[in-house]
């Protein structure tokens, strides 16, 4: 995998903080979670979620 990625991409992956994917919700033998997985998949596809949510902390503590 690493060979096909740029340094920046590798670093972004390193920094990636978990966002639930449909994969995380499958395999529990629970139709509630299966339906949720479908919703997550639909949402993630439609808004192009890249499973990437690094935090950028900036504080203004007046």
């Amino acid at each position, binding site marked *: 995998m690493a060979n096909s990625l740029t*340094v*920046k991409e590798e*670093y*972004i992956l*390193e*920094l990636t*903080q*978990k*966002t*639930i994917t449909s994969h*995380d*919700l499958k*395999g*529990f033998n*629970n*139709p*509630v*979670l299966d*339906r*949720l997985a479908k*919703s*997550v998949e639909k*949402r993630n596809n439609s808004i192009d979620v890249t499973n990437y*949510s*690094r*935090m*950028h*902390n*900036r*504080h*203004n*503590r*007046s």
Partner: protein
Amino acid sequence: MKRLTLGIKKSNFHKATLITTTSTRGDKPMQAEITQPSEVRKGKYLAALLKVASRCNLNCDYCYVYQHKDQSWENQPKLMAKGTVQKFAERLKEYVLKNEVTSFDVIFHGGEPLLYTAENLVKTVQLIEETVAPFCQLNFSLQTNGTLLTDEVIDNLFTANISISMSLDGPQNANHHRVDHKGENSFNEAFSGLDKLIATDSDLFKGVIAVVDPKVSPKDLFQFFDPLNLPRLDFLLPDSTHLNPPVGRNRDKGLYTNWLLEAFELWFKDYPHIPIRWFDSILASRVGIPSQTDVMGFGDVSLLVVETDGSYTDHDVFKITKPNGASLDGSVFSNSFDKLSDHAVIKEHSYRLSIEGVAEECKKCPVLDACGGGSVPHRYHPERGLDAPTVYCQEIYQVIAKATKLLRESLKIDVEANYSYAVPKGETLVLKANEWAEETLMRARRIADSKKYHAEGVTPAAVLLRAMSTNIVDFDFTREESEPLNWLGSIYLQSNEKWLVEPFKESISVLDRESEPFKYGQANLKKVENYLNHFNPTVLESMRILISDLLFVRSTIENESGIFSFSDDTAPNAIYIAPTVNQVPIPAEDIGDSILHEYLHQVLYHMGREGDFLFDHSFPRFSAPWREGLRSSGGFLHGTFVFTHLALYWEALSDSPFEEIDRTKAENNAKKFKKQAMYGLNSLYHFALLTERGEALIEALAEKLDIQDYKYIEAPGKDLKVEL
């Protein structure tokens, strides 16, 4: 039959910069005083509810049309005239063309719409399609009590592509609110209709909605509905306001809460194959998916209602609030949909569906993002109008916590908890600081080698930030200092390495070493060292080991008026501190607060790299009393972690030998941060998707603050009183 069909979805939250709203009370519709451009929160119609029949063959005791404050149905014609339908179709055509609407739902409603007859409904579809279908896809549906459904009626409706949703509260004993005008339970007639619908096995049968009666056990309901294999079921809470609270709750505060909690858990564990729209939505809210129901969530006003005589109303559930509670000016004969969408009442409704338009209690509630203040009519309060949390605040709050808990427990099954500490302290903290510093250095070296950077002696954050940047021709690092400054003997102070700042230059500017603010900051570092040493010598030692760079900066963002500091996980172990606010120096103890604050963020970044605290770092999002807007779960966890330690820092300073410390200020800050940490711990415990490691972290932070009761659960709008 008094509900919206199952097919209506709410639009996603539309952010707006709005308005102050005032409302008049009494018998007139509330008027919104708009102070911003009117197009900001107009209605955005995607569906229309046509009240083709104003009367009903049933007399359900909870019906919002006939049994609440509004009695305007008495003035309506019994059935919608053909001319009214024609005018509606013309208005719809005008609207979809002007607004480029490509799909629109038309819902036949009442009263009981089958009193209009299936034949007339089919003719109505034909008439509307002839006018509008060339320009927009139309979806027709019907919400019925089911008592008038025959095979022929169903066949006629399905042939015309009209989908059907039914209202039925459950088995015979659960259906006792749904009676005819003689007071007889309508179950047998309704169930006969349902049976026929099920027998069609058609996709045009959309499902059943049931109003909750907390005296009927959830188990009885599931046992009744389960064998029916409904395409969808939905539970609705009885329509109520603060003026007319849910029946029976004054005697038993937990009546509806307990019912919901039992129902949700039973559904999740024993009847998960039944799709229940509201429950599925609650669960989906945990991973940030907008609500599909009117009960919760932000959105837009996307449904318009046309009464039997052609007059417009707001959502007809507003009829529960007061006489003419849903009334608007005009009708299909006088106003376009566009004009209606600009009506002050619609704007207020729309505003109430935005984050700006919820009550103050809601803005400080950890489940705001999911709940959105609740159903707008259910917020009605005699003194506050719609500026109140839903009357079902406590119920919704608790069921969201239940959903979070059940989802968390499921997700934990697949994840092995693997951590050796909850919060590192003492020798472990020092050991970890060494490991994290070393690991950061190794990461930087690997990248420097792969990119052939000449990075010897360069701080790791600069290498990592440089590697992240694109479109930069200049590869060189610039730090060539004969006598670099430092703090604590090992932390570079005010490095001139440009890559430490380049990615953040829109937010911060590094202070010149000759500037007075820098000199002030530098001069106070000894005091800061003393304060931190008094607070916790191990923290100071680990800071010395972990932090590579401290830069004094100023904010370059307009209107930055508070104490400012900065750090980022792309710049590991580098912290950026403003020693002044608007050129005014801040006391040394506040500089210490900022340094500790950013160090703690770095610590939590490193801890997080060793194992997740959250199954999802983005969702759910949290609102917090200390900051506007919504924060990701990860950000909220960070804040809570930091506040916990800052509370202890200020507590230590309030009881310290340093004469220059303002004791009152230190005590107040300690209280403030403890309160914030408490809110964070409580909110995360109930509503974040914590891993087992995350739960251990929360517990350890509570222990640090000696907080015993962080698991209490209490909705902010729970005890809203009404003075009658």
